[in-house]
């Protein structure tokens, strides 16, 4: 039996969460002690037949007392809320240059894919100390990506992306579980997260077979879906040039400026009319429902790979 009460704190937020938990634990214990003391104390002192004086309530035990614990509870609740909310917002700040790893859940397994196309099943290798962004979606029902050692959990839904941001601070093997009930083998939908030092991680990553260079596959789809017909320089249709677009700010016709990240590219394929690039007509058809999730990832990977002066 492994340690009964030990739970490693292997990510940056684990420590933060644990400190809030510690605060809550102290507050809870104090209040439980207070209530127990009141109840047991009064029960003993004012049991029937005890010689304790009764008589009218003293003046403090009136409205003032009530107001004081109403105010006390309210202030404590407010303090806890602010503590938790500030923590939450600071943990949720987007980080530049996070390594984006895709997670796909299905009944009852986890599939992960690294930026270079390396794939894993029910395993996830991570470098220690680097910012990681897990972009997750489900193929069937709702699952939930739960790594207790990281204190992270996020539902993985079909039809949309959810994400987890984290940074591992401790190497080792940590268990990954599905936390949202997903059918027969829900309890067996587990995996492991291996956090490695950067050196070994790089070696591990390089050793992975990259049989499917997904950007390459994406290129074939780019032609197959007819994207190339418009988005090639020199095309007769006036459409934005995609070379080098990834990671750059894009000016939209409604004066907004957005970062061309994966989500933006994905949206532009599925809902092209939402974000029209300034100076272009809204002529692109939606590919929503026509492109499968896997194909979409390939297309996005291809667009990512386009450098200035390269490509179509």
């Amino acid at each position: 039996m492994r340690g009964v009460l030990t739970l490693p704190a292997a990510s940056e937020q684990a420590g933060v969460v644990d400190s809030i938990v510690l605060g809550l634990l102290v507050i809870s214990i104090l209040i439980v002690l207070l209530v127990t003391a009141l109840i047991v104390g009064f029960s003993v002192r004012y049991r029937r037949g005890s010689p304790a004086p009764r008589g009218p309530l003293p003046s403090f035990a009136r409205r003032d007392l009530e107001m004081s614990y109403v105010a006390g509870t309210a202030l404590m609740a407010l303090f806890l809320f602010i503590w938790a909310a500030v923590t939450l917002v600071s943990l949720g700040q987007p980080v530049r240059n996070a390594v984006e790893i895709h997670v796909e859940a299905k009944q009852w397994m986890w599939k992960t894919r690294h930026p270079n196309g390396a794939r894993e099943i029910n395993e996830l290798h991570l470098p220690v100390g680097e910012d990681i962004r897990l972009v997750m979606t489900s193929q069937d029902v709702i699952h939930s990506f739960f790594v207790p050692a990281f204190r992270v959990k996020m539902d993985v839904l079909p039809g949309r992306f959810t994400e987890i941001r984290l940074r591992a601070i401790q190497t080792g093997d940590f268990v990954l579980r599905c936390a949202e009930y997903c059918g027969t083998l829900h309890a067996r939908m587990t995996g492991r997260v291996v956090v490695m030092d950067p050196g070994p991680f790089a070696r591990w990553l390089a050793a992975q077979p990259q049989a499917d260079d997904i950007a390459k596959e994406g290129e074939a789809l780019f032609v197959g879906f007819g994207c190339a017909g418009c988005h090639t320089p020199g095309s007769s249709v006036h459409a934005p040039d995609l070379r080098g677009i990834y990671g750059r700010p894009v000016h939209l016709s409604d004066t907004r400026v957005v970062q061309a990240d994966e989500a933006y590219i994905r949206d532009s394929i599925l809902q092209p009319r939402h974000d029209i690039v300034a100076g272009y007509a809204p002529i692109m058809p939606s590919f929503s429902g026509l492109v499968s999730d896997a194909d979409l990832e390939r297309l996005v990977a291809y667009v990512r790979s386009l450098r200035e002066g390269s490509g179509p």
Partner: protein
Amino acid sequence: MSGDTARIERAGPEEITPGERDSYLTHETGILSWLLTEDHKRIALLYMFGVTIFFFIGGAAAVVMRLELFTPGSDVVEPDTYNRMFTLHGIVMVWFFLVPLIPNTLGNFLLPLMIGARDVAFPRINLASWYLFMTAGMLLIYAWIAGGVDTGWTFYTPYSTAFANSHVVMAALAVIIAGFSSIATGVNFIATTHMLRAPGMTWFRLPLFVWAIYGTSLVMVLATPVLAASLLLIAAEHALGLPVFDPARGGDPVLFQHIFWFYSHPAVYIMILPSFGVISEIVTCFARRRVFGYNFMVYAILWIAVVGFLVWGHHMFVAGQSLYASLVFSFLSFVIAVPSAIKVFNWSFTLYRGQITFEPPMLYALGFIGLFTIGGLTGLWVAAVPVDVHVTDTYFVVAHFHFIMVGGAVTAFYGGLTFWWPKITGRLYPMGWARFAAVLMFFGFFFTFFPMFIMGYLGMPRRYQVYPEEFHVWHVMASSGAVLLAVAYLLPMGFLGLSILRGARAGDNPWDATGLEWCTSSPPPRENFRTPPVVRERPYLYHPDAIGPGHETREPHRRQGQQS
């Protein structure tokens, strides 16, 4: 004035005349007189019969689960069976046990008595609601026998609509019908409280139990229809393929969770608010004190009933809800801690300078305050988003809501049952056994559910049939505690049942309580009061205004009503 004189003074002709011959139990006989009764007291007993059956069914499912979880591996049932068991446990315990538990049994029995009415506003609808409830129960049992449901009681889509090949539609239908039974009860209680109060029974003279039932009814009426809507959509999507939440067509499964929790979070308050009422009655009676801060207690009930509707999103912090919405719901969830604190501290201060005796109902009530405090405090944990992210969907949450619903509502129900049993049946039960059962329930409960907090924090997810070795010790503790708990639940059924046959006559007011229900005979006559009561007092006048109760003697308390 000595206690004995007080006793003699109270013993008017009222107490001597009524035999049991003309009580509500005996004024009509035969099975049909029960099945077609419009008497709220008999309907309460019908409900008690119903919820007892479902308590056994839900309990049986829990037994299977605890057996399976005794060891880490899969060795008692198949995974699919396990999934069906926790679903059955959830559906039965939520909609067929906890929701009707106090409102439909004790509430149905006591609400008209406490406000001095002859019956509830719509007696026939009251009976119809019992039939709806039983029909729903039959449907659910049918669905269970036909193969069961494996969606979890939460019916989350798309699992429930596209992937569960079990009797989802039947179960959803059963829950919808049970919901309408709940709505009928709620409408009835609201109308009763508004329209049928005895002369002089103003709003701020109502016993807190009536306020609690009123708040509960409010929640029943306003939340339950939304559950019906959400499950209707699930049933339509599952059976007819009408894709409202289908992600492949742009539907939003999280939207289902929103409207599901719009009911199911307030449903927690359907379960716990009536307990607040029960505890207030018991604590005042056995501390011989006026309730501390009556007005605040009322405001707290109403506050909970209203704000309880605004916090449902804290079930969805990791569900794919936006950060902004999570912050809003987190804030509102912290807000609801305040009225709960008012309740706990006001009960504690009601004990102050009292004259406390430890009859069984009082032991249940004191246990309730302890367990509810822990349940409520862990509510703060799960309201803090970063902590909830870690503990949600784990045994921590399982422990948290069992502390509220079982440690809270069920304990309060047993407390209320032992408190009003003499009124309901006219008989006394063996106090020693009852005290033992109350203490056993507290410790059994603690051993069953407290380990779940720990293993939840260590990362044991809910609804797992198999689990890693490291959680074994906690599960063994929980399973062993469950044995104690089961004994503590079964024991009162035994001695209460026996008391009907061999219990001593209780007399009209065995606890010297002040409520209107104690003014009439035990058991009460069909029409509740032989002469309509008139109310001239606030509730809980257990001692004269400025003076607390004495050391030894029972004080000359004043009852709320006088029968002219």
